[in-house]
């Protein structure tokens, strides 16, 4: 029921938005209220979005044609204080795939500067660092691959974390992030998307839901991430450290017969700057974890050969004792119609695991309020178990309409 009402609402919003965009007789004033004044008290923002993503092939282990069918409202409230800021941001949605009303508190944090050169942000927040484009070496903050693969907006790739982030801006910048309780990725559990289980040697889905043993002891299951960074003449240098737990349940407890999050320690570095007429980035990281240590390496290049067309290229390596995984990515972004239309294609291709993942997308801004997107998440490859090919029955085509206020 929800899935069809989501589709209907999406179509309704699209029609409403298009007719609004076509209203010619806006008066000549700017419709402005706070051009001249600082906002005081709480400022409210938000959007309503309808989204549906249809499987492009049926999934024999999941009796569900949609990977996404939902209508959500996001509300954000922020208040600027004398020294600092409070931000609250939350989503509620009717979910037609997991059936029911859902919610997600994405931000609830307090930011304050301490003295001249220290910033503290404490509470639920979105955290990102590193130089990769959809490839992560030193960013061990939680990601939501379920949202990303199933057709939600890019912003949902980043999952919130409860954390304290202390930043010191001296001759080098030092960021220290403490997560009192380990925060893993929102990994595939089999509820919305099927995946390959090495234990079952088959693609599986819920039930049973993948249910690993959580790392939830305070404070022994906490995590700490550190970054040292400095920009010299436009060249950004950074060193990273992390101690915590694997973001995916890659371990297995034979006794409990359940998956686990093994310990993970990471050391890494990155450099990014302008070169060769574009942006060049190189990043590396050593992951010390179970079942095997890993060395990760990334080299990327992005350039704009002609106006409004941007090309990004990345080579990424995950090296283990007995196996190397090579990945090539390409991103084409083309902005048209005075940047109201953005056409993009992101391609992951891995020769070593013979798999690929394509993300074609068209996004159109009907107006400052209304945006529509169509696109897909297309997985394929030769092997049943490959990194991307295991997801092939989750391939989907999506439509999203968002009205912002």
């Amino acid at each position: 029921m929800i899935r069809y009402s989501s589709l209907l609402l999406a179509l309704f919003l699209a029609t409403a938005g298009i007719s609004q965009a076509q209203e010619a007789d806006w008066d000549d004033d700017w419709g402005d209220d706070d051009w001249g004044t600082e906002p005081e008290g709480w400022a409210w923002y938000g959007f309503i979005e309808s989204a549906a993503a249809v499987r492009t092939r049926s999934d024999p282990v999941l009796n569900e044609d949609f990977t996404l069918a939902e209508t959500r409202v996001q509300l954000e409230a922020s208040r600027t204080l004398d020294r600092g800021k409070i931000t609250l941001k939350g989503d509620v949605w009717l979910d037609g795939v997991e059936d029911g009303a859902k919610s997600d508190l994405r931000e609830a944090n307090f930011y304050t500067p301490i003295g001249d050169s220290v910033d503290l942000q404490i509470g639920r927040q979105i955290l990102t660092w590193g130089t990769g484009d959809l490839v992560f070496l030193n960013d061990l903050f939680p990601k939501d691959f379920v949202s990303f693969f199933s057709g939600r907006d890019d912003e949902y790739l980043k999952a919130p974390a409860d954390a304290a982030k202390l930043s010191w801006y001296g001759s080098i910048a030092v960021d220290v992030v403490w997560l009192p309780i380990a925060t893993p990725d929102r990994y595939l559990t089999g509820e919305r998307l099927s995946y390959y289980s090495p234990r079952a040697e088959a693609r599986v889905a819920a039930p049973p839901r993948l249910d690993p043993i959580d790392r939830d002891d305070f404070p022994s299951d906490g995590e700490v991430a550190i970054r040292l960074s400095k920009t010299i003449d436009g060249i950004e240098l950074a060193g990273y450290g992390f101690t915590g737990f694997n973001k995916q349940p890659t371990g297995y407890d034979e006794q409990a017969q359940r998956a686990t999050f093994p310990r993970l320690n990471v050391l890494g570095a990155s450099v990014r700057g302008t070169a060769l007429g574009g942006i060049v980035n190189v990043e590396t990281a050593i992951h010390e974890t179970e079942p095997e240590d890993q060395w990760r390496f990334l080299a990327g290049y992005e350039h704009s050969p002609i106006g409004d067309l941007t090309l990004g290229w990345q080579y990424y390596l995950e090296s283990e004792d007995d196996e190397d995984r090579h990945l090539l990515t390409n991103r084409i972004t083309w902005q048209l119609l005075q940047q109201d239309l953005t056409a993009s294609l992101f391609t992951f291709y891995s020769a070593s695991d013979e798999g690929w993942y394509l993300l074609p997308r068209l996004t159109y801004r009907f107006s400052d309020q209304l945006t529509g997107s169509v696109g897909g998440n297309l997985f394929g490859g030769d092997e049943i178990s490959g990194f991307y090919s295991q997801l092939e029955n989750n391939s989907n085509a999506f439509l999203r309409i968002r009205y912002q206020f």
Partner: protein
Amino acid sequence: MTHRLLLSVIAGIGLMTSSIAMAQLTDANEIVERANNASYYAGEDGRSAARMLIVDGDNQQQRQFMLLRKDVEDGGDQRYLVVFSRPADIRGTVFRVEKKVGQADDRWLYLPALDLVRRISSGDKRTSFVGSHFFYEDISGRDLAEDTHELIETNADYYVIESTPRDPGSVEFAAFQTWIDRDTMLPMRTEYRRDNGEIYRRMEVTEVEVIDGYPTGTEVRMSDLDSGGYTITQFAFSEYDIGLPDNIFSERSLRNPPREWLRRD
């Protein structure tokens, strides 16, 4: 006789004063240099609120942002911080530029929903600035060395400069003409032409105010004469020489814009 002498003395003084105030310039390069300084390098630093009304047929969009600028060197490198407040989908987005004359700028873009600091390549500076009819280059200035400049007319109000690109393949225009106000040295109108002489793009300064002693274009209109679309940019709450510290032009300000310098009062 005395009367006549007095008159000529007065006229002489008058002439001298006026020639001091607005000596007629004859060197095209000096004129464009002074015009460039007047429009992009007023004061050591500056702050302004800006809003854009983007009109394409029936479609109207708006942008609103605060702009902080600091000169590294007059007529040379500059630092910019642009903090967007409207519309909703780009609110909180922050754009930072290290403008480098004669080489590629360094540009960063902060996307708050992902807490992501992106580095962006500055390949073509003649692409739309945030979906408006202004190009990046119109906002931060076009490198004077990219064109040759010729003074083709001096009238009572304006110097008229004809500029021709040194590398015609790098730009969409064949030439452009600029009307520079002789008093303020502000470029008041610029018209871009195609090979066939057709004017297809026009910038006009429609309001000028003197702010902290610097004549400032506070309303600028950029028109696309092919499509009929145009963008009006208004600047308000502008101030110069406010003593912006260097360290606000940093990654820290992308995540947490420096509020004390962005206040509109």
